[in-house]
C-alpha cells in the first residue's frame, strides 16, 4: 500500500500506476503482485514478417479464430469490440485503472485496454459473452442475478470476469480479500450487493456449479 495524492491505493492500483508509466514493464509489473495476472509470453508466438513488415497476428476469441495485421500497439480491447464485434467488454479508462475491459487471456484475467495486439499472438481470449454455456449461466452470473447487483451495468462484464478468476485464487474469500484484491471500479457503487454476490458465488463454486 502506498499513498498517492492523499489516497490509499491497493496493490493493484499501485501496479497500474507503475504500468502507465513503464508500459514496457507491463508483464513484469504484473508478475508477483497479489492480484496480478501474469501473461505467459505466448509459446511459439510466430510473428511472420509479411511484405512491408506487417505481421499477421492470429488469435482465438471465445473459440473463434481471428487474424489481424494492423497496428501492433492497438490494445486488445478495441480488437474485441470493433473487429470481433463483441461489445460486452467495455472501455472505461484505457489505462488499466477501472477494469471495465477485463477479459481472460490464456486463462488469466487481464485489463485488455493495455494489452497490445503484439502480445496476443496465438493467445486464447475469453470474453463475457463466452461465460454462459448454452443456456446455463456461469455461477458468478447466477450470484449476480440473485443479488441483483447491476445498476447501470456498464462495469459488470469486467467485474464478473475479474471475480471468476479472483474466486479461483480465493475460493473462500474474506471481506478483506475482496477489499484488497477486487479492484474493479463501479462508479454506480453497486459494491454492497456485489460483495454479497461474491460470497454467494464462492458457495456456488464449492457446490461445483458451472
Amino acid at each position, binding site marked *: 500500500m502506498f499513498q498517492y*495524492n*492523499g*489516497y*490509499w491505493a491497493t496493490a493493484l*492500483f499501485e501496479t*497500474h*500506476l507503475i504500468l*502507465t508509466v513503464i508500459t514496457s514493464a507491463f508483464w513484469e509489473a504484473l508478475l508477483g503482485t497479489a492480484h496480478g495476472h501474469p501473461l505467459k509470453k505466448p509459446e511459439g508466438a510466430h510473428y511472420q514478417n509479411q511484405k512491408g513488415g506487417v505481421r499477421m497476428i492470429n488469435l482465438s476469441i471465445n473459440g473463434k479464430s481471428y487474424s489481424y495485421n*494492423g*497496428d501492433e*500497439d*492497438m490494445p486488445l480491447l*478495441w480488437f474485441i*469490440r*470493433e*473487429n470481433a*464485434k*463483441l*461489445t*460486452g467488454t*467495455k*472501455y*472505461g*479508462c*484505457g*489505462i488499466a*485503472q*477501472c477494469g471495465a475491459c477485463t477479459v481472460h487471456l490464456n486463462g488469466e484475467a487481464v485489463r485488455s485496454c493495455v494489452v497490445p495486439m503484439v502480445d496476443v499472438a496465438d493467445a486464447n481470449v475469453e*470474453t*463475457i*459473452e463466452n*461465460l*454462459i454455456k448454452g443456456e446455463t*449461466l456461469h455461477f458468478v*452470473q447466477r450470484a*449476480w*442475478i440473485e443479488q*441483483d447487483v*447491476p*445498476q*447501470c*451495468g*456498464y*462495469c*459488470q462484464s469486467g467485474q*464478473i470476469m475479474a471475480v471468476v478468476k479472483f474466486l479461483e485464487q480465493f475460493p473462500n474469500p474474506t471481506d478483506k480479500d*475482496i*477489499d484488497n484484491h*477486487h*479492484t474493479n*471500479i*463501479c*462508479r*454506480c*457503487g*453497486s*459494491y*454492497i*450487493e456485489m*460483495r454479497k454476490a461474491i460470497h454467494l458465488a464462492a458457495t456456488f463454486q464449492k457446490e461445483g456449479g458451472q
Partner: protein
Amino acid sequence: MMQSRRSFLKSTVTASGTLLVYFNLGALAQEQDVTTEVKANPMPFIEMDNNGNITFISSRTDMGQGSPTSLAQILLDEMDADWDKLVHVRETEETERSAYEEGLSTIGAISTIIGWFNHRKAGACLRGGFKLAAASIWQVDEKGLITEKSKVINPTNGEYLEYHQLYQKLSDLYLADVPEFKTREQATLVGKPLRQLRTRERVTGNATYGIDVSFPELKIGMIERCPTFGGSVKSFDGSKAREIPGVIDIFQVSNGVAIVAEGFWAAKKGREALEIEWDHGPLSIVSSEEIEKQLEDKLVNPDQIEKNEGDAANELAKSSGVKLSGDFNFPFVAHATMEPMNATAWVTRDRCEIWAPTQCKLDAHDQVAKFLGRNRNEIVLHRTLCGGGFGRRAQEDFVIEAVEASHKSGYPVKLIWTREDDMRHDYYRSISKLQITGKINDEGELSAWDSKLSFIDTSPYHFSPQDRNTKDGLFVGHAGIVPAYKIPNINLSYGYLDLPITVGILRGISHGYTNFAIEVMIDRLAKKANIDTLELRANLLNENERASTVIDTLKKVDQENPVLNGMGRGYAFAYEGEPGSVYQYYSAHMADVRHLDDGSLKVHKIWIVADHGRVINPASFKRQIHSSIYFALSMMRSGEITMTNGQMEQSNFDNYPVSFIGEGAEHVEIKLLDNGAHPMGCGEKMQAGIQPAIANAIENLTGEEVNGIPVKRLA
C-alpha cells in the same frame, strides 16, 4: 377504445393481435391549456402480444437508477397484470415533446413522481377496461368481477378470461378517465423488492449502451477540444494525422478539430498526430485560486438577495446568545460516468438518425433540429442505455458533436470521448464558497442566520434549453440555501461569476454544497450552545410533520445505538419541497467515524432514515442509498477538479480516483418510513445529507473543522 379527444388512453390492436396502449396526454393538456403548443401526440407505454406477454416501454432513461422497473411495477400492479408475463422492456421511440410531461427527461427524481400519476392512472383505466370487456361478453355487471394476474374472473362461477382474449373488445369501449384506484392493501407489486428488469442483459454482456452501437458503415470520431475553456482553434495541420492508417477525414468543428477513422485506435493515434494552434482565450491565465478569489469577492458583493426576513444583522450584532461563523469551500467536481460520453449520428441530405445515451431525449432532439436547421420530423433519435448519468447526460453537447462530425464528414460517426476528454470537458458541479453566520439566542432558538453563497453562473449551461440564460437557469447553482428551519431573522444572498466554464448538475444540484454548509453550521451552533443537535433540529422543524418525524425516528435510532469508544458521531438533515407539494422528501443521516492505524478516517457506519413517501421498490431504493454512500465518499475523499491556466488538471481515474469496493461505509442501516405520501425517487437525493453527517462526525472525533471537501484523510 378511445373515441373522445379527452381520453387519457388510446389503443390499437395490430394485425398480429398485439395490443398497443398509448398515453394520450397531449390531448388532455391541449384542452386544459390552449396556450401551450402541445400536440395531441400519443405515446405508447405498453405492448401485449396475443399470448399476453408484455413489453414495457420505458419513458425514462435507464442509467442504473431503476426507474423503468419502478414504473413497470406501478403500471402492472394497478392493471393487475401478471409480472411474470413482463418479458421485455424497451426504450420509448417517442419524438414529440408533447407526448409526455417533462419532455421525457430523466432528472431530479421525477420519474416516480410523474409515474405515480400517469402509469398508475393508465393501469387503473386498463384494469377497468378489461373488466368492462369481460362483462360485456358474459353479459354481467362488471362491478361483480375481479381481476388478478392478467385475468378477469367472475367469482360467482369461477369463469375467467385472460386479458389477451379481450383486446378486440377493449377497442370498442369508452374507458373512465377517473378510474378507481387500488388501495394500498390491494397492492401486489408496489412495495415489493422486485429484481431490476435488465439484470440478465447486464450480467451477460448483452446490454447495449451508446458506445456499443454498431453497423457496417459506421466510422469512429474523436474531437480534439481546446484544453483551455473558452479557447478556440487558430489553425491546424492534419497532414501527419492523415498518414496514420485508418484515418479517413480531419476537419474543424465548433468544439475543435474532428477526426474520423475506421476505429477507435486509429482515431486516437490520428488525434495525437494533429498539430493545432489554439487561441487559448481569456481563461488561459486563470486558475482555481484566482476563481476562488473572485468567489470570495462575490460573497461580499452579491448579485441577488434570495430571502431577507426580520433583521439578521441586528440580531447578530447583539451580544447575547451564541454566535458562530463558518467559511466553506467546494471544488469543481466531475461526474466520471463509467461509460464516457459518446453518441452516434448519421446525417444525410434529408435525414438524420441518432443513437444517444441521453437523459433528455427530446431536448437533445430539439437542439439537433436547431443545429441542423431542419424539421424535427426529419430527425430520428434513439435513446440507448446509459452507463451512468448523474446529470451529465442531461446536456446535449455530446449529441450535437456527433451530429456535426457526421454532417461534415458525410459518414455515420460514433463520436467517442476518451476518459480524458470526459473528465477535462465535463459540465462540472461548480466550484463554490459559502459563508454562514448563525446565532442561537439565550432561549435556545436559532434567532439569526446570514448566509452568503457564490458559484459560477450555471444559467448559460442549463440542461434545459428554455432555461438557459434565465433566472431559472441559476437555480441549480443556489438551490438549497434556504434552511427548512424556523429562523425569525434571516438573510440569504448569492453571487455568481460569468466564466466560460461548463458547469451543471451532478447527482442532484447545489444541495450537495448548500446543505453541507447548513448542516455543519447547525451542528456547531448546537454544540456551542450546549444543546443536543438532534433536539435543536427537532425543535426548529416542529411545524413540519414529515420533517420532524424523520428526526424523531433518528433520535430513537441514536438512543438504541450508543456511540462506541473511539468513534465520532455526526448528524445531518436533508429535504426538498414544501408541505402540500408532491415534490417532497425528508431524510435524517447519522454517521460514525473512527481512526484507522495509519491515521486516516474510516466511516464505520451510516444510518439513514428516509421519508420519500410511498416506496415503490424497497430493494431498488436501498440500492440507490448504498450507491449514494459510495458516490458521496468518492467525492468527499478525492472529488476535486482543479484548474490551472484555464485547463482542468485531472484526466482519469489515476488522478481523480473514485471509490473501490473497500472504500464505502463499513456498515449501513436504512429505515424507510414508507408513509403513503406521494412517492419520490431517491437516485440523487441522498447526496445532500451523507457528506455533512460524515463531516460532523469527523469534527466530533478530531475536534478539527471540516470546511468543505475534499477531506483527503478519508479512507
